């Protein structure tokens, strides 16, 4: 499991960030991003994932906490996002303040 600090990903461009995440997941890691991805970035990640799907890599599981409104409701603050290989993640369940992942042996 890779726990990525917000500082690490904030220095990356959007596409660089998504490639970094997808490479980690394709290597079999669960990637946890402090600071998370925006819904636009998550949509781009889904699109990027679909270009990489093959017989060995069926895709990803992803969940996260919803964005929070920032100062004067002007800026959305993203929060933690968890992304993992669909092949090993049996389920990911989210409750209000808790994300649980059930992992199966490869």
């Amino acid at each position: 499991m890779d726990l990525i600090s917000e500082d690490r990903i904030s220095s990356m461009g959007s596409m660089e960030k998504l490639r970094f995440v997808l490479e980690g997941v394709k290597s079999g890691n669960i990637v946890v991003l402090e600071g998370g991805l925006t819904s636009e970035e998550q949509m781009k990640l889904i699109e990027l994932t679909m270009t990489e799907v093959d017989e060995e890599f069926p895709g990803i599981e992803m969940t996260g906490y919803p964005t929070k409104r920032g100062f004067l409701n002007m800026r959305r603050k993203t929060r933690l996002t968890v992304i993992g290989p669909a092949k090993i993640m049996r389920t990911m369940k989210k409750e209000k303040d808790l994300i649980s992942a059930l992992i199966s042996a490869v």
Partner: protein
Amino acid sequence: MGVSTEVPHETRRAVRRGGVIIDLKSKLLQNPDSHPRHNPTSRAERAKAKLKLDVVDTPGLATKIDFHEFMAYGLEEEEAKRRAKEATEGVIDAIKWLDDIDGVVLVMDSTEDPYTQTNIVLIGNMEARGTTVIIAANKVDLPDATPQRIMNAFPQHPVIPISALKGENMEALYEEMAKRFG
């Protein structure tokens, strides 16, 4: 517009149909008391009672597509792999269409948990773009359907319970489309 079967990802290409007309006006004029919200004396309501749309039926979004899932429905391995490949292209196609639409009717299964990440991502995207979203809570003909769960999950958007299979409550969906997209 698309074919519906038990096999997942049956719609693997976006289908566009231009000039679809929702005409609620004639019905309302025939029976003006049928719905108080659509009194034909209201000019604004009359204007919204007829709506011309270009409709795009897109494949559903997914974060994973495993060809083994298709084999569980009796498809041969090669056919399953071909379908999986087409399904991935369909998801990309659907995402690209989001750049070019004015409103979304998001069809959700009322018997399933609405808090899927694809639903959350899609609605988050539409909200960020300022695109109108109507949620059609489908399959209300099934005994375990709970459209209220969808209403609770996404209270910021209108949710219309329907059964596409039985044609139940489709008028309400068309009325909402005419009201929101007009």
